[in-house]
């Protein structure tokens, strides 16, 4: 017989987020060094304030295209040669853009760090943007857009953004651009975007892993010597909701065995005074396996393989969204449960057990999040992108532990808006339409996919 006595935790061992040095190089680049001498591995992550929210109107996708093209040719080497050079060093460079920044990243064995970082510097500071590669990456993006038509999860995400934000918001369109905007992009657009935004004052280099601060400073100083000075302008972001009234959009997919559901509204910017209570509140609502929404939809009803809610944290107010896929026949009851859970967390104080589960999880899991050099580098990137205080990671666990049930109720009341919820369903309209129409969740429209 296995003992029935549940073990008690031992004494907590202390943990500190890796110490890091944050400084400005003489040329204006911000350099963050986190020496982590665990394994002979180093991650170098470069972020530039050149994310998709900076796409000019009508040129949506140019930020992503520019970042993607960094690895496709320099003054000296073509794209194939670059790939070959990186990969013979056992690394490969990833580059891209999200809403808030462009990035280029390598993870390499320490022995190859100098050579790989030198190449990384080259691709960032002297990209050639060959015409042929511009056209190829555009065509690959168009192929991706075409794939979405038959991929219900991606389609639901994209339609949700479209119906959530006003049409003049950059957030209402795909971050990598639509078929129309991408088709219109040219090499000149890319070059212009690069020249305007890839500047030393807009660049942060993060280096985490098996390296000393002195060596990192010398290396990065040398590699990023030729880097255009100055900073890019701060863009103006519109992020207003398309409507404040509840509404339902069914994107019709004939014979779909499941309905992909997205329910939510415009959320909060990453940097806001209620971040911690909102984070813990969402963990109770839908952020954990043991959260209300997942237990209700999956474990009580068996409607789904999984259901969750999250705030998509961005510089501007990203979406708050509940996301799941349910068997078509139970679409309406599942939606009813989701609305019920959002309402319930705003009206009743959560129990002590729910509070401790969410808080203890977020507090306790903290060290597990930073096992790798790549994870440490991306945490430091978030700190730079969202302008978080220098003690953010040292005080994170304390801030989580301080959140009370009352603060969670306040956050739910302030930051969940049941009367503004937008619902997107990608599913078979003929099966789900009537039962959804009977719910009181807003005017219903059916769209072809």
């Amino acid at each position, binding site marked *: 017989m296995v003992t029935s006595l549940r073990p008690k935790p031992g004494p907590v061992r202390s943990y500190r987020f890796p110490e890091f040095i944050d400084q400005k190089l003489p040329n204006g680049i911000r350099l963050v060094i986190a020496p982590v001498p665990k394994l002979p591995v180093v991650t170098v992550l470069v972020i530039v304030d050149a994310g998709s929210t900076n796409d000019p109107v009508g040129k949506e996708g140019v930020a992503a295209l520019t970042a993607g093209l960094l690895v496709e040719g320099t003054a000296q080497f073509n794209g194939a040669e670059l790939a070959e050079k990186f*990969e013979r060093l056992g690394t490969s460079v990833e580059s891209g853009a999200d809403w808030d920044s462009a990035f280029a990243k390598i993870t390499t064995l320490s022995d190859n760090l100098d050579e790989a970082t030198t190449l990384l510097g080259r691709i960032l500071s002297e990209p050639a943007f060959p015409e042929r590669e511009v056209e190829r990456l555009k065509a690959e993006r168009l192929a991706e857009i075409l794939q979405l038509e038959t991929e219900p999860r991606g389609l639901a995400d994209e339609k949700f953004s479209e119906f959530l934000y006003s049409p003049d918001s950059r957030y209402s369109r795909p971050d990598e651009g639509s078929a129309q905007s991408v088709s219109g992009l040219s090499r000149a657009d890319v070059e212009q975007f690069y020249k305007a935004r890839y500047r030393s004052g807009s660049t942060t280099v993060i280096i985490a892993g098996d390296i000393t601060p002195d060596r990192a400073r010398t290396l990065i100083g040398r590699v990023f010597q030729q880097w255009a000075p100055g900073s890019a302008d701060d863009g103006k972001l519109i992020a207003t909701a398309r409507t404040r009234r509840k509404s339902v959009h069914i994107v019709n997919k004939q014979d779909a065995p499941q309905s992909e559901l997205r329910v939510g509204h415009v959320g909060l910017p990453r940097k806001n005074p209620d971040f911690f209570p909102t984070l813990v509140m969402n963990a109770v609502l839908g952020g954990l396996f043991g959260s209300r929404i997942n237990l209700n939809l999956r474990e009580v009803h068996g409607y789904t393989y999984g259901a969750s809610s999250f705030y998509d944290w961005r510089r501007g107010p990203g979406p708050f969204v509940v996301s799941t896929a349910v068997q078509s026949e139970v679409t309406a009851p599942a939606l009813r449960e989701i609305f019920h859970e959002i309402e319930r967390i705003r009206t009743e104080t959560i129990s002590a057990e729910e509070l401790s589960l969410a808080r203890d999880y977020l507090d*306790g899991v903290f060290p597990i999040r930073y096992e790798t050099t790549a994870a440490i580098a991306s945490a430091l990137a978030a700190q730079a992108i969202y302008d978080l205080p220098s003690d953010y990671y040292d005080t994170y666990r304390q801030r989580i532990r301080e959140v009370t049930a009352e603060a969670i109720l306040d956050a739910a009341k302030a930051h969940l808006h049941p009367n503004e919820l937008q619902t997107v369903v990608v599913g078979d309209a003929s099966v789900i339409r009537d039962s959804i129409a009977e719910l009181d969740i807003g005017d219903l429209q059916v769209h072809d996919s």
Partner: protein
Amino acid sequence: MRIPVETFRLDNGLFVALSEDHTAPIVAVNLWYHVGSANEKTGRTGFAHLFEHMLFQGSAHVGSNEHFELIQRAGGTLNGSTWLERTNYFETVPSNELALALWLEADRMGELLPAMTQEKLDTQRDVVKNERRWSVDNQPYGTMLEKMQELVFPASHPFQHSLIGSMEDLSAASLDDVAQFFATYYTPDNAVLSIAGDFDPAVARALVSDYFGPIPRGKGKPPLPPMTLPPVFGERRREVVYDNVSLPRLFLAFRTPVFGSDDYYAASVAAAILGLRKGSRLQRTLVRERQVAADAGAFTFDLAKGSDLLVIDVTARPEVPIGQLEEEVEREIDLIYRDGVTEEEVERAIALIETDLVTSLQSAGERADRLSMFATYFGRPELINEQAQRYRAVTVQSVNKLIAERFGEANRASLIYVPREGVETESMLAAAAGAT
């Protein structure tokens, strides 16, 4: 780079691997049971995976879903997964919670059945059916794994049937099946336990023997039918699936040497030469130069018995019909079959693989999982430290020998997805091809 490994075995047969690392107050616990979909009975496809779900539904001293709750409350992460040859369960927790993770695993290994009810089985059956809809039926190319298994393994072979199972078989699973499966396969002598991270080995040994020691040894499991397969298919195989997809996609499989054998490493390097990252053959030729593919890759299944598979995965550009894509891919394979690969290509592949090996070992969970894998398949968790060396021993000669033996016409199986709207064009193409 070497990570420390020590092992011991309890009297009931449980094999244990330990690997200390005190750089952070984190410890990973990982259990592999040597049972997977290959062990399912006829008419019970999907059972091993459904059973994995039942393991989170409580045991003698743990309530339904309490396993998840207790680990998350402790600040840990957890999950389980099912594969053809094994099922694993794993937790990463703050190191002061090691005892909790071990106790939870012991309780469900020792006394699962008192907690099982028909209601729990019915709910998890619905959850798994929704998992099937989500990951297989309502996902483009989602049927790839089960269609590939059918195409490349003979009818009676244990790897031939679907892992997630058919809706019909899932409906037929009973509580009695649960009890039998548990008694047969979830025994200490059919499991490996690995612990990696921040712990005191003496304490860990004591905990393991206290919690797992009282669990009785199993009565043995029925042997699998013969797994061994000829080194090649012996014929050209080709299956076309008309499906709800936007772009044609070709999966081209070769039978290759089983995971862990010397020749496996040559096959793994060949897969990396063909499809790992932008500098690989298929990325360079089909995606970059000729621009007929939107994406291209290659991977091995890593099966330790019967035969492994090396699979090439190429998605067409929108304007490229499947016939052209097939020709272009075959041409690349013919070329490599005729001329082999170069020294430089082998070096590139090994360099990339070696970096991946080292970076993956940063995570305690990965270390524990690999220790369990090598212990389960080969009884030698210390193989974790020999992988870089095994890869470095691969030469251009060994890769070319592998290619010569395995890349011929008689060892190619194509699984081809074609958009449903493309059906007419495709059948016209087939008719045209048939006329010549």
